[in-house]
């Protein structure tokens, strides 16, 4: 059945009005395929409204590893005429259009292996893998590392973390709270950390903008905190249901003043899971705020993944004292303070306090040696290098299947602290292309700042849409031709 396919990959689009079940149908098909041993990647495109409007779910699947969906369709399933019109130009030669309505009746097509859609849920499924989005994977990572509280104010594309964890609450275990606004969210989390509970908060970048003062407070008071920041097309309200990588600079510099923080930027669902667990453990180990930078694509798109919960341990910090301990007084303050937590404005105390907070940078950098903060993928010996961060990993890896020349793929996972030595070693004197979902080439500028290497070839996308792997491959091939 793969004669018409692009190599061994088939792509299905499901289009219809919001409320038609476009997303649900896509997920059902995808999970059916996953259960049959296929690798699947599912993307969702929808406007910011509840009913009506055009929704589109697209999934690419293959017997081999698949990193990203493709834009050319082998099958289009449409619940209305509009969807056929909108996606006709994306059909491959000989592609099938299924327009039986409503959607569950798409079962008539004899050529498709998922013909019995009504009975899919009853079929024996492969349980080793799961079809999971970055937000849910991140949330599971937090849970695996012993999360006590999750707090959030709803904001796309971070909201599904809130929904998922809210559904996982237990009387004695995890609690989820939705306070009055993002400012309350983060300050409440700081009160929890002070009293000894592991808290995480999540929001889109606009919500994180509201949290800046308290983020700085976490740095000042050395209160452990995890913040999931899901980027969407900005500035301001921007395009709520679309993606962007334009907040790299914002998060690495977040909060006023100077204080240590960690910024982890996972690239796929499995890495999001790991990032959630690492973030919580690192926040408590080093008493620093930790940001996990997500984006709409990573947050919402589904991919076949294996999450290894046994690989996660809960690392506690026995040195922290909490209120409620007899004979101990625990003082925390947003003012500059001495070691006992009393306010100070003496220059010598201030200097000491700043240095005390930055002392832990050395320890964090030591810890980095045990973590893959920069990943080297592809052909490790190649002179051709592609560098990227975050969800751009997926289209880059998918595109790399179609590169004319072998290439080394360098993924920056930790944006702060930044392993300048390693990045320099991997990029120096190579033909480097930097790929980012923003206008200013923020990663390229960060690399220049940290390593002195100027990357001239950049592929930047800032129209809010994901990179298409075939388009990306074509551009990269032409830059290297």
């Amino acid at each position, binding site marked *: 059945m793969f004669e018409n396919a692009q190599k061994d990959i088939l792509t299905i689009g499901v289009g219809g009005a919001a409320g038609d079940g476009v997303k649900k149908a896509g997920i059902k098909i995808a999970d059916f395929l996953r259960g049959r041993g296929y690798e699947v990647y599912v993307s969702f495109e929808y406007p910011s409204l509840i009913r009506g409007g055009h929704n589109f779910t697209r999934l690419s699947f293959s017997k081999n590893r698949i990193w990203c969906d493709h834009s050319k369709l082998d099958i289009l399933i449409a619940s209305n005429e509009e969807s056929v019109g909108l996606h006709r130009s994306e059909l491959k030669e000989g592609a099938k259009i299924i327009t039986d309505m409503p959607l569950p009746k798409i079962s008539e097509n004899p050529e498709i292996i998922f013909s019995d859609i009504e009975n899919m849920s009853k079929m024996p499924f492969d349980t080793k893998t799961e079809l999971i989005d970055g937000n849910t994977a991140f949330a599971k990572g937090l849970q695996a590392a012993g999360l006590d509280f999750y707090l959030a104010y709803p904001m796309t594309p971070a909201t599904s973390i809130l929904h998922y964890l809210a559904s996982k609450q237990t009387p004695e275990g995890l609690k989820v709270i939705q306070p009055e606004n993002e400012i*309350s969210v983060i300050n409440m989390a700081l009160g929890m950390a002070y009293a000894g509970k592991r*808290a995480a908060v999540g929001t889109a970048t606009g919500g994180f903008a509201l949290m800046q003062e308290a983020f700085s407070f976490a740095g000042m008071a050395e209160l452990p905190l995890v913040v999931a920041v899901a980027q969407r097309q900005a500035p301001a309200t921007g395009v709520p249901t679309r993606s962007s990588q334009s907040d790299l600079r914002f998060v690495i510099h977040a909060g006023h003043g100077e204080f240590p923080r960690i910024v982890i930027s996972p690239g796929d669902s499995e890495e999001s899971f790991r990032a959630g667990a690492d973030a919580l453990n690192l926040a408590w180990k080093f008493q620093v705020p930790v940001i996990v930078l997500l984006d709409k694509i990573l947050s919402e798109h589904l991919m076949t993944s294996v999450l290894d919960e046994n690989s996660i341990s809960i690392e506690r910090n026995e040195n922290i004292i909490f209120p409620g301990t007899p004979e101990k007084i625990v003082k925390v303050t947003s003012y500059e303070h001495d070691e006992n937590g009393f306010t100070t404005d003496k220059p010598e105390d201030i200097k000491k306090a700043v240095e005390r907070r930055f002392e832990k940078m050395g320890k964090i950098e030591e810890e980095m040696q045990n973590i893959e903060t920069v990943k080297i993928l592809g052909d490790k010996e190649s002179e051709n290098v592609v560098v990227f961060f975050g969800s751009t990993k997926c289209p880059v890896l998918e595109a790399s299947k179609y590169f004319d020349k072998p290439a080394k793929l360098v993924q920056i996972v930790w944006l702060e602290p930044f392993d300048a030595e390693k990045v320099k070693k991997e990029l120096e004197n190579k033909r480097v292309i930097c790929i980012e979902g923003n206008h200013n080439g923020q990663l390229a500028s960060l690399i220049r700042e940290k390593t002195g290497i100027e990357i001239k070839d950049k592929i930047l996308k800032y129209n809010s849409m994901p990179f298409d792997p075939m388009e990306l491959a074509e551009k990269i091939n032409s830059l290297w031709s």
Partner: protein
Amino acid sequence: MELNLGTKIKITWCPGCPNSQILVAFRRAVTELVSEEKIKIENLVAFAGIGCHGKISDYLNINSFTSLHGRLIPAMTGAKCANPELTIVGFSGDGDSLDEGVEHLIHSAKRNSDINIFIHDNRVFALTTGQADALSPKGFKSKSTPFGSIEEPFNPLLLVLSAGATFVARTYAGDFDGTKRIMQEAVKHKGFSFVDIIQPCLTFFDTRDYFKEKIYWLGEDFPTNDLKVAMEKVQEKNNEKVPLGIFYNIDKPTFEEELYK
């Protein structure tokens, strides 16, 4: 066990500032509550916002959390959720919790979080050297309102009553015993307690003479379980009489109880 609630930190409030009276009243309230075994000293946490009032945490030899300006209330709720054994008191100012963080005040009253808010009510921004705030009367002349404030003030007690507070009281900083007693009643109350402490600012808005003539304590027969009566009483014409005492004190499930159900 003898409690030592003082610290070595030099008090930097203006000489004669009623904040010192609030500090003394609180120390006395705590000493008695601990000796009566109503609270454990290690479980007591004093939160503070930013403003003149906020210096109080440095003067208390107990657990403390000095938040950002206006943000003590969510931090208090967070700590209470994290460890319901803690006794959470929060010192705040009218600028702190009726301007900057008013959303948190209203919402914590709504959710009936088991925390205690003591407002140092001086009706002016003092630490920033005197500007009108949410409780300054209309016509109040300050550095930021040289021709007089053009806004009506909030009635903070009415505000929290309508938001769902389950304990609402007012006291006068100059009355040590009255303030101590109200603080103790607030701490004993299960649920959201709001105490407005009239604290004249000697430097930027000296209302001592004004209040001395107008304050009076509610009689012992005042019903504290009737929202309508409480709302009427807290609206008693301010320029005639200013009642002090507990206006409202009812029992309702707290946010933390509901959370752990």
